[in-house]
Each structure stands twice: as C-alpha cells, then as structure tokens.
C-alpha cells in the first residue's frame, strides 16, 4: 500500500520534472511568432489603449469635474468626436489584442513556471495586464450592446478603475520589455512575407470592424455600418433614445397639464407653465446628442436660452452655475450641473421642440436641457426644476 502510494508520488513528481503538453518545447509549431511581430503589435496596441485612456478619462472628468477642471462649451462637437474615437479605437483593438495574445501564448507555458521572486512578480504583472486588457475590451463591447447581465458590477465604475489597472500594468510592461522591443525593431527585419501578411490581416480586420460600426456616429456611413449598435436617424423625431420616459417612470408627471418648471435663484422663485416658456423669446440650435457609448445624432432644437432664464432671476450667467433636475424621482443622472461656460452660451437651451415639433416624450417632453459639447447623460430630460446659484 505504502509502496503503491510512493510509486504514484514518484510518477507525479516525474511529471513535474518533465514538461508535458503545451509545456513541451515545440508545442506551438507556427513560425509566424517572433519578437518583431509581437513588438509591432504591442506598439500599436499601446497607442490604441493610450487613446482610449485619454478619451475615457476626459469623459470621466467632464461628468464628475474636480474643482480645477474646466470644460469649454466650444467646439460644439468636441465631446462627440472624443467619444466616437474612444469606442472606435476600443473596437479596432479587438483584432490587435487577439493576435498579440496569440503571438505570446507559448510563453504562458514557459518551463519551469516560476524561476524565483523576480520572475514571479513579472508573471503576476503580465497576468494583471492581460486580465485588465480583456476586461476593458469585453466590458466595453457588452456596454455598447446594452448587455449588462454578464457583468457582476456597475459598468461605469468598473471600466474606470480597471482602466487605471491596465495603465499601470502597461507602464510596467513597457519598462520591462523596452530593450527587447528596441532590439526587435532596430534590426532591419528579415523580409518576411508571412509576417507582412499577418499584419495586413490585422489591419484589414480593424478596418472592417471600424466601417461596420462607426456609422453610429458618422452619419454618412450609417447605411453600411451593419453592426452599429445605434443608428442616427432611427428613433422618435429621428433621434435614438437611451432612457425612455417609461423606464424613468416620468410618464404621468411629464404629461400632467398642471406641469410647471420651477426656476429658483438667489432672490426669487418662478413657476413657469409650458405656455409661459413658449411665450419667452425662442431660439434654435443645431446640436448633437453625444453618448459616451460612442453614438451621436444631430437635432434641430428650439426653446428658451438658459441664460435668459437666469436673467429672469436677476442672476449674472457668467458668475453662476445652474443645477438642472429632472422630474424623475431617482436615478444616477437625475440632475446635472451647467457650469459657467455652458450656462452663458447662447446655444444652451431649455428645449421645447425638436425639428419644429414639440419634444417627443422619450426626448424629454415638456422641456429638456440641450447644450453644446456635453455628454448626453448631462442633457437632462423632463426638466422639473432649475436652480441658479452663484459661484465664487
């Protein structure tokens, strides 16, 4: 019995000594893998992730501005472009990341698995890098498809913090691998048509994915973007909707004939009916709704300038900010702050109409905020109250 067990232990130890399966030398026969291929893909991927980080952090700062942060109201479409680029770059990095990981897959089975503390730390940082990269790309994909069930966390917060994890792991990786990459890219690469073809393939895949999706924000491509999660021009009054009146639970309050927009300022409070708002000077602005999910669509909005409403309260728009509150009882995006640059902009409206018609209920009837160069979630719908307060 004891001898039997001893033999078994010996056999297991034998396995540990001798690499098996994917750990064997020559387990991965493709000759396409090389330090040069991996380096080229790595540089491209680092650039793509860098773009995603910058555009993503920018959106985070705009939505949760720290004291030092100022975001201008012009150019009108800047936010739209940054978020279109964020999502398009993330999608284009799918083939880059896939082939990059394929090119280094054999290293997962390096033998022996651990060679001391330094090696263990390096492998741990690679694990963090791979996990964070897959996390960001996959959670982003799920988010633009509005499929939240597979993610056991709140997407926005998870995507934000893992972006920093990815950034840190990527910095470590660049620091560790810089000499290898420099060496691989310095030598004039042996002319290798197979490698060139693989790189061309990755580029082609990224191009196909881009054309197939970018029509969600680049309107001329909407017809050929067969995989765009949104379509500009599709929706009530030609605009897509993120949160419907039914989902927000505002149907009854928004349609109430006794609706009043409560305007309150330092000295006074006004209660304006829809007729009161319509009696004020009306202005028209052509502005996009630009979503952090990378889609956008332009509408022709008309209504009352927010700075005119601030003027009714006797406030100086340049020295104030406005807090817009929705009729929604709850919800993460129930309120938004309109800071100086946007409050004072002539294009910032309390919109009553879209394309000449009264707002559709799902677009925020009876009144919504629309301002230039701002995320869609801050363009508060179903306005119930606007509070103007002075800032230092």
């Amino acid at each position: 019995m004891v001898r039997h067990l001893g033999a078994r232990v010996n056999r297991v130890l034998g396995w540990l000594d001798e690499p098996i399966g994917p750990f064997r030398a020559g387990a991965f026969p493709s000759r396409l893998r090389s330090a040069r291929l991996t380096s080229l893909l790595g540089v491209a991927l680092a650039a793509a992730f860098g773009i995603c980080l910058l555009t993503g952090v920018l959106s985070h700062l705009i939505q949760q501005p720290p004291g030092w942060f100022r975001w201008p109201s012009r150019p009108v479409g800047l936010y739209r472009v940054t978020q279109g680029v964020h999502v398009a770059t993330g999608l284009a990095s799918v083939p880059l990341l896939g082939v990059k990981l394929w090119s280094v897959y054999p290293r997962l089975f390096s033998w022996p698995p651990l060679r001391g503390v330094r090696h263990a730390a390096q492998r741990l940082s690679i694990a963090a890098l791979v996990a964070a990269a897959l996390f960001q790309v996959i959670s982003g994909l799920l988010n633009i498809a509005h499929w939240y069930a597979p993610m056991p966390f709140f997407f926005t917060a998870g995507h934000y913090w893992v972006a920093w994890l990815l950034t840190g792991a990527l910095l470590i990786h660049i620091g560790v691998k810089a000499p290898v990459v420099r060496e691989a890219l310095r030598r004039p690469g042996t002319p290798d048509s197979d490698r060139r073809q693989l790189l061309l393939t990755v580029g082609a895949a990224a191009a196909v994915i881009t054309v197939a999706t970018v029509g969600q924000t680049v309107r001329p491509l909407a017809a050929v973007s067969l995989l765009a999660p949104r379509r500009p021009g599709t929706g009530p009054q030609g605009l897509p909707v993120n949160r419907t009146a039914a989902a927000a639970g505002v149907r009854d309050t928004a349609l109430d004939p006794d609706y009043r927009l409560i305007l309150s300022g330092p000295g006074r409070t006004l209660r304006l009916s829809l007729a009161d708002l319509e009696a004020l000077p009306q202005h028209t602005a052509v502005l996009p709704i630009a979503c952090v999910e990378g889609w956008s669509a332009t509408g022709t909005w008309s209504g009352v300038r927010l700075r005119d409403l601030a003027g009714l309260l006797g406030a100086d728009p340049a020295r104030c900010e406005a807090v817009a509150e929705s009729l929604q009882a709850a919800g993460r995006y129930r309120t938004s702050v309109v800071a100086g640059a946007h409050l004072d902009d002539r294009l910032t409206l309390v919109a009553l109409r879209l394309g000449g018609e009264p707002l559709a209920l799902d677009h925020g009837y009876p009144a919504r905020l629309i301002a230039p160069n701002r995320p869609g979630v801050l363009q508060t719908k179903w306005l119930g109250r606007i509070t103007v307060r002075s800032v230092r």
Partner: protein
Amino acid sequence: MRRVLIAGGVLVIGCAVIGAAGDPDVDQLGVLVFLMAVVVLHDAVFLPLVLVAGAVISRVVPEGRRATVRAAGVVCLAVTVVALPLVLGFGRTGDNPTVLPRSYPIGLVVIVALVAGVAVVCRKGIERSRARRRGRPPG
C-alpha cells in the same frame, strides 16, 4: 528611465486598487471575478479553439491557399467577436426600439460573405499574376 516606468506603473496600480476599494459604486468582488473569468475563458477556452481551427486549416486546405483562408478566418473571427453581443441581442428592451435597431445576424452573415468573396478574388488575382510572371521569359 525603465525604472521610472516600472515604479510609476506600480504606483498607478496601487492608486487603482485603493481607488476601487474606496469607491462605493464598485463591486470589488464582481470586478475581481470578471477579471479572472475573462483570462480563463480566453486562455483556456477561446485561444485553444482558435489553435485547433488553425490546425484543421493546415490539414484540410491545400498549401497554396492556406494563407488566404487563414487571413479570411482571422478577419471573420474578429468581426464575429465584436458582433456576438449584438447578434445575441440580450440588450434589447421592449420599450426602446432605438437600442440595437438592426438585424445583426444578417449583418454578420453579409460581412462574412463579403470577406470570403474578397479573399477569393484576391487569391485569384495573385495566382493569375504569378502565372503571368512564370510564363514570361526572364530578363
């Protein structure tokens, strides 16, 4: 310079961990589970299947056409990964038809067919130009 990058990276990771731990909107366990799940699914399921598919192509497709089939396969696979959540369509809700307004299964089939068609045409073009070059006397 390398030391600065590595030290900076460690610092950023530290900030990310502390920040995530202190953010009431973050479900730390959920994020950790998802981080591990995507690695395991990629390294132990997805990539092995891709390697098997590559081996099948090597075995089944004649050598002259292997490169083209592989290239078309990589493009189609990448497009399918992007399309999958849209094709499954679990993000659709009854009250908002502006989310996922298209027929994504048809879109994916059209794109895969186009990629295959372009691959065939390119292959034919390469073969023809090679044949022409071979037919011409050198010099």
